[in-house]
């Protein structure tokens, strides 16, 4: 497939949102090839010169394309659930222009060759840019360190064992210390594995009534507490993925106050849903970590508001029908999220929890900055990765209309507000809402 990059394109009549500079104003933006060359409220005040292709934004919001720092791709290994191509189409439909994928593919992304395979395949599609995490330990087995330094040289943005916790304290200590040698970031799925073993949903009255084994919220807290001590003694950089409990948020809050190099993200299900979504054994609401109580959900919202939670990521985890049409305990965990990331996140804005610009920051500039990506800003010289969206347009989540191969969303039929109208990657329009 040949990828054609247009020349100069003017985006006029837009509400410009650039969290990095605090810009929220009517204006225009000009791209040339793959980069932004000018942006501002006064741009094209006297009209667009002849010879420049013009796109009238019709007053909609023009923001940096979303940077999704937690996506599970299923290629290589489980292409029946998702491919780089289907994930790419889902991502651009969701306004995501950069995504960072977990190494839990088959084979695991724990060597340079696999990483380059993924990067090359994704580049060929010309859709959302794909960046890989490297594995912290070989085969994600939690035993021997993977070649962290060389994987970083080959393009790994950060390191994680994906959906499994690094459970051995000494291994985690060494991973943090070794990664810190190169200034690299470790991303942890914080869940004490022996506490979570056999558990399939939040521990509490609901699990007891359903006869399902619960996972105590303490599983998250115990792992985070341990890790905070390890960060303290190693001076490592640490990021907690999908924080979902009140105690978890509080532990990160305290660590930040102490000055530790700690950040965290959460995903839409954890601020938009609680354990009641499990209902009568709805396996689409089986996630890892599990959906928690209403008190936990509120604490996650508070964490996003006060900045304890730096980033919102989709936690996209495609699962096919066969993995979900099972008794709850046997069903695979996870939900697709690329195509609902923006709309569900916008609920925080519509409900008055966060100004629009702040919300967009959590979805763009914050993850880009943490991972060292030259993305997430509207600035001359930056990549022309953009999303045009109407924050108010109402629609209803319909998994059958998803571009993703898998349809396992916990938000099925939810009425939402906020629609992606156009997505631009490297100056090229890769998605237009019809």
């Amino acid at each position: 497939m040949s990828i054609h990059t247009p020349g100069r394109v003017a985006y006029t009549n837009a509400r410009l949102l650039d969290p990095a500079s605090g810009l929220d104003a009517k204006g225009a933006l000009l791209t040339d090839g793959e980069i932004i060359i000018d942006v501002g409220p006064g741009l094209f005040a006297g009209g667009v010169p002849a010879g420049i292709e013009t796109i009238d934004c019709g007053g909609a919001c023009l923001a940096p394309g979303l940077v999704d720092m937690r996506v599970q791709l299923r290629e290589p290994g489980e292409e029946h659930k998702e491919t780089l191509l289907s994930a790419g189409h889902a991502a651009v439909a969701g306004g995501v222009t950069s995504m960072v994928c977990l190494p839990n593919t088959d084979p695991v992304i724990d060597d340079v060759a696999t990483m380059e395979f993924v990067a090359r395949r994704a580049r060929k599609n010309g859709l959302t840019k794909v960046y890989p995490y490297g594995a912290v330990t070989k085969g994600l087995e939690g035993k021997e360190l993977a070649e962290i330094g060389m994987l970083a040289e080959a393009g790994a943005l950060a390191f994680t064992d994906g959906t499994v916790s690094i459970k051995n304290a000494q291994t985690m200590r060494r991973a943090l210390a070794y990664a810190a040698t190169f200034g690299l970031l470790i991303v942890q799925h914080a869940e004490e594995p022996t506490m979570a073993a056999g558990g399939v949903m939040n521990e509490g009255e609901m699990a007891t009534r359903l006869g399902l084994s619960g996972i105590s919220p303490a599983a998250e807290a115990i792992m985070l507490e341990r890790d905070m001590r390890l960060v303290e003694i190693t001076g490592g950089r640490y990021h907690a993925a999908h924080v979902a409990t009140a105690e978890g948020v509080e532990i990160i809050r305290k660590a930040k106050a102490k000055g530790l190099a700690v950040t965290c993200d959460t995903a839409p299900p954890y601020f938009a849903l609680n354990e009641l979504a499990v209902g009568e054994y709805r396996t689409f609401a089986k996630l890892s970590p599990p959906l928690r109580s209403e008190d936990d959900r509120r604490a996650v919202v508070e964490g996003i508001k006060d900045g304890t939670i730096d980033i919102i990521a989709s936690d996209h985890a495609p699962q096919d029908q066969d993995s979900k049409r099972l008794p709850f305990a046997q069903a695979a965990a996870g939900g697709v999220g690329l195509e609902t990331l923006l709309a569900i996140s916008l609920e925080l804005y519509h409900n008055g929890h966060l100004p629009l610009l702040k919300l967009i920051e959590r979805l763009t500039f914050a993850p880009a900055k943490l991972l060292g990506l030259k993305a997430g800003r509207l600035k001359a010289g930056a990549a022309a990765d953009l999303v045009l969206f109407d924050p108010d347009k109402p629609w209803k989540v319909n998994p059958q209309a998803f571009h993703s191969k898998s349809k396992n969303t916990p938000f099925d039929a939810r009425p939402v507000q906020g629609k992606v109208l156009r997505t631009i990657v490297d100056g090229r329009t890769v998605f237009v809402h019809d």
Partner: protein
Amino acid sequence: MTDTLYPHRHLLGIQGLGQQEITALLDLSDSYVDKNRSTDRKMSTLRGKTVINLFFENSTRTRTSFELAGKRLGADVINMSVQASSVAKGETLIDTAMTLNAMHVDVLVVRHADSGAAQLLSQKVNCSVINAGDGQHEHPTQALLDALTIRRRKGHLDGLTVAICGDVRHSRVARSNIHLLNVMGANVRLVAPRTLLPSQIDRMGVEVFHDMRKGLKDCDIVMMLRVQNERMAGNFIPSIREYFHFFGLDYEKLSVAKPDALIMHPGPMNRGVEIDSDLADDVERSVIREQVEMGVAVRMACLDILTRNQAEAK
């Protein structure tokens, strides 16, 4: 005609059923007890109907009870044990159900190790589904037969104090009984070590005790639960010996209950683990064998009502 008092196609659990529905099932069961005791036990109520006992978990008692119930009513009963066979070949629960469904079955009686399995099946088939035990969730016919046993002995359920003792955490029998007894107006107590109680069980309308002498005080019914030796010792409890010492039922611990308190057990019993052997056989106190008898009657009533409702729906 559709039973107006129990107007459902399935029996998946006790949760959600009201007094009227439970009473309807118990009343009909009562009539089958007498019938079973007569010499003329063979009926044609379910002639031409097919009942499949689909058991994904080992069970002799419950399966035999359902089999007998179906046969007494004149149904064709087929037993399917799906332990290793199809599941090992990769056939899922739903595949199995769809296959059976295509054979025009009238009632599927399902036992499965996973909570929610019976409900999942019921969404995929046209026939009636009876939950014969799903994971740690529910075992509705056990709760009904327990209730029938109590009602026949005590004349009523409301106002009675029932102590359910033992491994509540892993027990579907306990959950179904808690729902049923609460709806029918009994006072439910649970007696167990903290490791054998699931989280926030107190929100299910029960009073929780950790001492048999306090939990059994003045109660009318003592329901013992089975302890599953294999996975218990060294894990949830230190040893069988220690468990029996503190939570096993013997004459001494029973002495604080009402003098006419009845002892129940869903079976199979672990003698010397959760219950003293002599006590289990004491005909004055133990109604354990009566429970088994009630089981057949209750299952006949369930098959009868569900197939009647089906005929109406068609």
